[in-house]
């Protein structure tokens, strides 16, 4: 079985897991497990454990299971069996080898994409249970190194990539300057109070993909929006702590984010094309703080572009002609039902669109989300193996361009496209919009 | 009156049971009063019952008479058919349906005396 193989990969590469395991005592292990499973959870968790009839209907939902030739250990329920059930049966007295495997299952063999809860007749949320395992790993300090580093960064800088405060502002000012090549009076208004929109991005944008901020600024400017970006921490809408089970840091990130919006007195928050950040701000981070729903309307780029196009604030000069297909990211399709809107944008901007199957809520995972890609280079090879079905699904479309409105999906899809030699280009919806839009400023009277 | 009808039923039962005897060897209650009997008539030997000491004297245990829903003591109804009083469905006059009249009479007695069959298939033996 591939399980043994992955364990050996992990042993040789992830110091954080190995060092963490070496520090553990049996008492601490059972204390933490029992504390999380019995004190932090309640009836919901018990119902999930009691209700599962071990029918295996969830297997077909999982891209890991399908990519690994139906290896039973990758079935969603099997992941619960190999972690939670055994922790419960042994009352938390589990071995270090067990924990090593548990870290791996919860962090690298599950994207917490929640597709399986759509295939379980009882709607059992297996992703929730994998996140509980991650919380246990977090408390035992055996979270994989690279994702833990992003959480450490969040805790210090409130962004995911150790972007320093001056680097952030400097990057925005530099993009603003660049943008003036296209629109001479283009601005990225910093910390402007009382505007309608706070635009937020994930830290990898200023770090590696500043061009996306440039594009967003051009779109905002052309559409004549009254917007701003915060000049102090709280600009990053990503939240890796949500994926390691560090609910305390996760809450702090979400609070800083929403308080930025409150400080700037904005009406709503628009965010770039990121799925997990949307999940964090719309669905998870807010709950950690007693905000039943996010205190500000959180608008994903898909909704925003759709609004600009349908309101005529942005018009399309010439449609994109290459054959495109669309990947539905879990966190905005299953997580927010934006898949139909995304299709409308594709149809408004592209002339040759091919659907992939299955799609919409049932789309197969990119294999990178849920914090999996953030566990870093040591796990890249197995990520490629674990997402073969996605490559097959993409190949079947025969498209030249793959549109994926999510950063994590981009990383995952680019990796598998390269690995499986698919000869496809991955683009954001924003890339397409930027390429096809009329570069003129919207005037209401026109 | 009723007793007569029951007696007549027994005579009829005896007459028809000849067929049963010839096929199965056992004496059974007839099921004529039922519209579509689901089970073969229960195996029942009147002689066996009248010869047992406990009920040999008192025909009215089975051949009872009720008036105004109370048992009339010292009267019996051997000349009536059970279905004269117990209709297929319980009604205002009699709350005990014909099925229950048989089932309850037989089983309750068997329970009380600790004798005789009580399970369905012990009486309704497949032919």
């Amino acid at each position: 079985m591939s399980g043994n193989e992955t364990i050996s990969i992990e042993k040789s590469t992830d110091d954080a897991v190995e060092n963490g395991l070496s520090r553990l005592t049996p008492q601490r292990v059972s204390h933490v497990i029992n504390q999380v499973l019995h004190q932090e959870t309640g009836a919901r968790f018990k119902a999930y454990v009691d209700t599962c009839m071990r029918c295996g209907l969830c297997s077909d939902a999982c891209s890991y299971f399908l990519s690994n030739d139906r290896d039973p250990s990758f079935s969603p329920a099997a992941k619960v069996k190999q972690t939670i059930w055994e922790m419960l049966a042994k009352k938390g007295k589990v071995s270090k080898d067990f924990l090593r495997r548990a870290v791996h299952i919860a962090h690298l063999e599950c994207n917490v994409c929640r597709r399986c809860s759509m295939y379980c007749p009882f709607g059992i949320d297996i992703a929730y249970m994998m996140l509980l395992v991650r919380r246990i790993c977090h408390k035992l300090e055996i979270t994989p190194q690279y994702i833990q580093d992003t959480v450490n960064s969040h805790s210090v800088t409130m962004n995911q990539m150790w972007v320093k405060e001056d680097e952030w502002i400097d990057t925005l000012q530099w993009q603003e300057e660049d943008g003036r090549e296209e629109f001479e009076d283009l601005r990225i208004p910093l910390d402007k109070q009382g505007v309608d929109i706070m635009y937020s991005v994930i830290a990898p944008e200023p770090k590696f993909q500043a061009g996306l901020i440039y594009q967003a600024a051009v779109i905002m400017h052309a559409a004549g929006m009254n917007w701003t970006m915060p000049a102090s921490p709280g600009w990053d809408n990503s939240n890796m702590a949500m994926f390691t089970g560090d609910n305390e840091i996760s809450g702090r990130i979400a609070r800083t984010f929403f308080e930025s919006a409150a400080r700037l007195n904005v009406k709503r928050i628009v965010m770039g094309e990121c799925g997990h950040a949307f999940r964090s701000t719309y669905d998870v981070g807010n709950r950690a703080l007693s905000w039943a729903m996010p205190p500000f309307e959180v608008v994903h780029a898909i909704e925003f572009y759709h609004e600009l196009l349908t309101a005529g604030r942005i018009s399309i000069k010439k449609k994109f002609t290459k054959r495109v297909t669309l990947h539905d990211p879990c966190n905005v399709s299953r997580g927010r039902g934006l898949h139909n809107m995304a299709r409308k944008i594709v149809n408004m901007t592209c002339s040759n669109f091919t659907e992939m199957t299955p799609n919409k809520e049932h789309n197969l995972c990119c294999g990178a989300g849920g914090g999996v890609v953030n566990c870093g280079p040591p796990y890249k090879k197995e990520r490629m193996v674990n997402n073969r079905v996605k490559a097959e699904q993409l190949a079947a479309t025969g498209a030249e361009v793959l549109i994926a409105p999510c950063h994590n999906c981009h990383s995952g899809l680019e990796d598998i496209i390269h690995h499986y030699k698919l000869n496809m280009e991955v683009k954001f919806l924003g890339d397409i919009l930027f390429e096809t839009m009329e570069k003129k400023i919207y005037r209401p009277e026109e | 009156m009723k007793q007569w009808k029951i007696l007549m039923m027994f005579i009829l039962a005896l007459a028809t049971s000849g067929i049963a005897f010839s096929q199965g060897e056992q004496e059974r209650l007839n099921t004529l009063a039922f519209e579509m009997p689901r089970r073969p008539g229960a195996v029942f030997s009147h002689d066996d019952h009248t010869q047992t000491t406990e009920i040999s004297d008192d025909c009215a245990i089975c051949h009872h008479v009720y008036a105004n829903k109370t048992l009339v003591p010292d009267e019996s109804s051997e000349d009536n058919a059970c279905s004269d009083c117990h209709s297929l469905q319980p009604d205002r006059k009699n709350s005990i349906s014909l099925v229950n009249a048989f089932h309850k009479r037989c089983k309750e007695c068997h329970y009380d005396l600790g004798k005789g069959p009580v399970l369905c298939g012990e009486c309704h033996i497949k032919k």
Partner: protein
Amino acid sequence: MGPMVWISALICIFGLLVKFILIIKEVYEKERYLLSYITVRHSLRSIIAWLIPFYPRSTRMRPVYYGISYLFHVLLFLLPVFLMSHIVLINESFNLSWPAMNDTAADILTIGVIFALVFFVLRRRFIPDVRFLTSFMDYILILMVLLPFVTGFLAYHQVILYKWIVIAHVLSGEVLLIVIPFSRFSHMITAPLTRAYTGSEFGNIRHARDW
């Protein structure tokens, strides 16, 4: 009917009721936030979607298993309830009655239930991912359901050891009733709850379908 029937039936009903109340109570005490996401509309939407045969994609992908499983669950309740022999016994005790199923039909459907259970066993043995999930307890649970049906079938046909078979039928039925609230059979009440919650999260918060 002996008192055990009533005791076991009461244990089943009250057990499930108590279980239900405890779940709601615990949610209220420990995870009250869940209640802010549940709506009746989205709960029902999800439950109904999953009750319509072959409507959810998951069930269309496994038509044989799902079809058998669906019929099995329907029969599991309908057969005992509409069986002549059971109605007669209820009628003796409570003077209640309702139309009974045709005996031959009941007989065939019983074979159907037994077949479904055998199918479940075979599936657990031979489908690798299901086998991986299966523990000894799963077979015990199947056996617990199987016994009342097999013994009922044998008793009806009066094949062998009639008296003992009937006793086994009664006892296995009673055991099954008693076990329901204390085992995963209680999914008869927890599954609608998990479904309702997931249906609400998907429908109410995430604006997506969960089938």
